[in-house]
């Protein structure tokens, strides 16, 4: 009797059990389930973020003691040429890095997802597996491998271009100030194109078959179905991919550090906020590490990310919701 009652009203038994539980026991239960996650996360993720922001309002004197200075570090960072020049250079390079991902990685990812989701395509899982493979590798491995491949010493890239008659196009791209940053961004695109591909592929599979069938009955071809029906329907996912790309940019330190070192050469041409933050905080060669200025750089990066995420949540996602299905 009770069993059939439980089946009919699904939410009931839970609220009964929870409601009949003594308050103390319920709290203990929640502490048991949520305690470990909340404690570790707060202590090693949220607290360091807040402490870093707090630290950015201090400075150290010659004895190593901390002194509160308010926003002086930020003023120095944004106006003192010694700091502001590399800062704006890094911020601009970050923007270029992001733009290359948005203009190259995401369109290629969308196109590959579109091809993979064609009905009746054979070997689909093999293609997916192979194209996603580089994403699983460490950025260090990928960066160094491409460093070797593009190196004029080895000549693999040059040989490949010669084979198709474009030998004169070859240049030591990673070594030239004008091309180093874009080359690094393209290496990153090569590695991570699998992520937009997979997310959009999953979204494309979610589109109800009836919609596609209706379009096919109306005589639309695959390309027009993709462009006019599928693509508008996966716009929310494209928005998600964009914000993931944006946040991912701030983790691009690993690649630049591996290929170009902490100095992000040639002549800081590939310096992004991640490498700038590392040098400021940890120091390099002759410059000593400066934790308080490093904290200031991290705080500025935090606000840039926050601005991007808010833009996404309040503008992009809200608009796109209307198309959601």
């Amino acid at each position, binding site marked *: 009797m009770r069993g059939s009652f439980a089946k009919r009203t*699904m939410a009931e038994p839970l609220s009964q059990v*929870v409601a009949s539980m003594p308050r103390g026991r*319920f709290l203990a239960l929640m502490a048991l*389930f949520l305690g470990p996650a909340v404690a570790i996360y707060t202590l*090693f993720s949220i607290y360091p973020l807040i*402490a870093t922001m707090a630290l950015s309002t201090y400075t150290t004197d010659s004895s190593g003691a901390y002194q509160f200075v308010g926003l002086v570090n930020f003023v120095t960072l944004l106006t003192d040429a010694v700091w502001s020049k590399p800062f704006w250079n890094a911020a601009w390079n970050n923007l270029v890095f992001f733009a290359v991902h948005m203009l190259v990685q995401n369109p290629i990812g969308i196109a590959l997802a579109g091809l993979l989701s064609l009905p009746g395509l054979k070997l689909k899982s093999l293609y997916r597996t192979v194209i996603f493979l580089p994403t699983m590798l460490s950025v260090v491995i990928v960066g160094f491998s491409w460093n070797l491949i593009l190196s004029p010493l080895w000549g693999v890239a040059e040989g490949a271009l010669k084979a198709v008659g474009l030998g004169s196009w070859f240049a030591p791209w990673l070594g030239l100030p004008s091309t180093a940053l874009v080359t690094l961004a393209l290496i990153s695109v090569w590695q991570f194109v699998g992520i937009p591909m*997979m997310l959009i592929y999953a979204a494309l599979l979610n589109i109800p078959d009836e919609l596609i069938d209706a379009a096919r009955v109306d005589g639309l071809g695959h390309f027009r179905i993709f462009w006019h029906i599928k693509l508008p329907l996966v716009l929310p996912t494209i928005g998600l991919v964009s914000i993931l790309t944006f946040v991912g940019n701030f983790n691009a330190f690993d690649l630049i550090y591996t290929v170009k070192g902490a100095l992000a050469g040639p002549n800081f041409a590939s310096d992004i906020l991640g490498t700038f933050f590392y040098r400021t905080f940890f120091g390099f060669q002759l410059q000593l590490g400066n934790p308080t200025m490093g904290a200031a750089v991290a705080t500025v990066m935090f606000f840039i990310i926050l601005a991007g995420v808010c833009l996404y949540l309040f503008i992009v996602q809200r608009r796109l919701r209307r198309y959601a299905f």
Partner: protein
Amino acid sequence: MLNQPARSLGVHIILIAYSALALGPILLVVMNSFKARNAIFGAPLAPPNATTFSLVGYAKVFKASLIGTYFANSLIVTLVSMFLVLLFGAMAAWALTEYKFRGSTALALFLSIGIMVPIRLGSVAILKMMRAAGLNDTLTALILVYVAQGLPMSIFILSEFVQQIPKDLRDAARCDGVPETRIFFEVIAPLLRPAIATVAVFTIVPIWNDLWFPLILTSSDSTHTITLGVQQFLGQYITDWNSVLAALSMAILPVVAIYVIFSRQLISGLTAGAVK
């Protein structure tokens, strides 16, 4: 309009070309790591044969670096972090989705900050904390940071999975008077196994591949992870192509092997919920 076979041929050509672009550089590095130095430079695109085959690079890597230790460190850090991320993540996801209480939405929002904000922005304070706690240059420090880093995403993913578990299951257990903790560990947790693949892609792979935290939190050779160890080795032996290619291959091959074995689960995990 093109006829069907011609169009499908075109699609396959594009996909094969892109697959070659994705696989080529990896193959090239692995292939050349098994060759003698002059064959690496003389004919980079040729696979190793009886005369050019050489393991000199691998021998040097084993002799000149603690690559075995790096591997062990990475394994310890990744597996312990993975276990804790899955356990604590699943427990929190269960509590947040199953028991709605005052503040549960706020708590869920608080936990999701970490999905968007990279934890490395707190590095200055993390390093200070670890030094103060005497955890600097230990694997424990890395594990704590990685668990904190992995939890938000895993809670998010696992919550989706918890919601998909039929309500009847736990209600039946409740009617039998099974205590709540046992419902989770004996009924719910085993059902979350398919979620492991998705969590692995989003939280475990980044842990194995991370360079940043080993770089700032570990200073001695014996605590380096494979990613940092290989990075330092590559920097030191940059002109010794045999060793460089061998070190790269040794970092690539285990990941590729595991990926190929689990690719079906990993990819279905990534597209979870999509296949109806």
